[in-house]
């Protein structure tokens, strides 16, 4: 199985390549990709250099253009696609059907992957994208169990890539407007979720309050670590109950299940984290590389090291296990 690794900066890109990535995915420094954070991503020149570096080491480069084109400004996405193709991207990762159609028409040879943001969660949806746009691979939404993935794998006419490590979306990706409801900025339209520009921490007595826009997302008592106010990882009152309404502040780690994923027909494992630093990327990629190279019985210490790398050190297998629902 291929290991698909994130890079938010040229330095992280080189680390990922050196640590043994089969492919590195990245995006341009604008709203055309779903990690449009300040200080992240690539200029055209940086992408060209990165692709050259990766090629030399036998590593592929995937370029994410996985936001939805803003009506009337499609040219921004079209020129990003043109440049990614020209610079030699091995695949474009797309979510918008209009953009998929454009790429198919203008660059018929270009390999096209379906982004998780497209929310293709069943065989009919995936086969539609294969037939309509000649998609070669689909990144599955984090809404499926391993059993679901195996069933889908038998029925689709393209490769399957799944997220195995890093941040975890609770909602079906690409179908969530929670962030823009609170801030006006969304993953689909702006490439951001719960953006830092709208985050505020406020001391209230002995509590630390984290806010997104005008909404309180969490409240931490003294001594409790104050996490980032990602909307769906907040603490709320739901009827009479109080707690993490959607999901605890955990991250995804299904490396313990990679044999089952392999049996399910998965051809690529994806690491989330283009916003993470180069040291983190290097450590995660090299550890996952070692996991893949080690027999299942010997993986224990490596899996423990991965858990230590996870956000808050709490992890979940998420929807891959049925009880999560």
């Amino acid at each position, binding site marked *: 199985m291929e290991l698909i690794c994130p890079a938010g900066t040229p330095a992280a890109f080189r680390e990922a390549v050196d640590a043994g990535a089969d492919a590195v995915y990245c995006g341009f420094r604008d709203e055309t990709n779903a990690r449009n954070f300040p200080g992240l991503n690539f200029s055209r020149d940086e992408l060209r250099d990165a692709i050259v570096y990766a090629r030399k080491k036998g590593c592929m480069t995937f370029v994410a253009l996985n936001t939805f084109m803003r009506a009337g400004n499609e040219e921004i996405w079209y020129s990003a696609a043109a440049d990614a193709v020209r610079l030699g991207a091995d695949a474009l990762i797309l979510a918008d059907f209009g953009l998929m159609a454009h790429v198919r028409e203008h660059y018929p040879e270009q390999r096209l992957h379906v982004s998780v943001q497209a929310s293709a969660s069943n065989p009919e949806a995936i086969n539609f994208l294969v037939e309509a746009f000649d998609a070669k691979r689909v990144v599955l939404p984090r809404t499926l169990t391993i059993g679901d993935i195996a069933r889908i794998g038998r029925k689709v006419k393209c490769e399957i890539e799944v997220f195995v490590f890093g941040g975890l979306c609770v909602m079906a990706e690409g179908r*969530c407007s929670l962030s823009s409801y609170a801030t006006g900025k969304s993953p689909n339209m702006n490439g951001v979720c719960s953006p830092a520009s709208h985050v505020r921490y406020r001391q209230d007595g002995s509590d630390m309050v984290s806010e997104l826009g005008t909404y309180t997302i969490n409240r931490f008592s003294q001594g409790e670590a104050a996490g980032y106010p990602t909307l769906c990882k907040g603490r709320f009152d739901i009827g009479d109950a109080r707690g993490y309404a959607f999901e605890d502040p955990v991250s995804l780690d299904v490396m313990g299940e990679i044999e089952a994923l392999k049996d399910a027909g998965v051809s690529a494992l994806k690491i989330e984290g283009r916003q993470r630093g180069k040291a983190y990327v290097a450590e995660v990629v090299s550890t996952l590389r070692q996991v893949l190279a080690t027999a299942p019985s010997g993986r224990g210490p490596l899996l423990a090291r991965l858990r230590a790398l996870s956000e808050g050190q709490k992890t979940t297998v998420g929807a891959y296990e049925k009880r999560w629902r």
Partner: protein
Amino acid sequence: MTELTLGPVYYLWDGPKWRDFYYRIADEAPVDRIILGETVCSKRQHFIEPYLAEVVERLERAGKSVAFSSLALVTLERESRIVKELIETSDHAIEVNDLSAIGLINGRRHLVGPLINVYNGPTARLMAQRGADRICLPPELPFSSIARIAEDTSDVALEVMVFGRMPLAISARCAHARSKGRIKDNCQFVCGEEPDGLPIKTLDRQSFLVLNGVQTMSHTCQLLLGELTDLQEAGVNAFRLSPQDCDMARIAAIFREMLSGSLGPEEAATLIGHCYPSAKFSNGFHHAREGAAWISRAKNTAHAS
């Protein structure tokens, strides 16, 4: 002539309540088109099935056009089968709400629901080429995008949601069941206990969202009134009302009066507030702001009247 569409009931209402709601719509609501059927959770379908035929018959007898809604999130084999059967066997128009339905319905006339990501003209044109007659655009879209899509797309009718809590997210996980100590697989349909959604408040007691099974909706109710003229002039030819647990027949009548010019937006807002007294209204998405915001449009309202 601008049409009014009544979107599907997103909530779980028990069968008789659901049937009686539509009987009243058939008898009293001046809407042109009704989208029927379970959209949010495949587990709920059996609640309405016994009443479906009589509701369709009553609505059609009243001269309404009826279309069936497909499921929003399809992950299980059973759900794939439901969508397939709906498309293969239905003698009514279908409103598609997920990619599998878009794939399966190719070439047949159909409607595209607001849960499909149509953010631009090229995507709208692609939908039209595949057989879409009408697209209800996602609630997140600002007016500038709506106007541009309308300009770019002449061969498909466009619809915009103007009333109702906005569908903001959907998950494989059921936060509604979890909040009551259950999980999706043994939920015992606890979402039916809240026919207008289960409120989520912040720890500072701000009303924020509501849960509707696996769906998360806005606490605020989208309300576009002063904006209708701009939308009509841009080429939007239908407005969608999304059912809440309130007097929807009356709300439809208020919108109809507004469209005929006999009621101004401010009076309409007051009357709608009376019909749905628990609601806080918003129109932020339309104005390219946070969706929860209410932007007062004194200037444009004056222009519209």
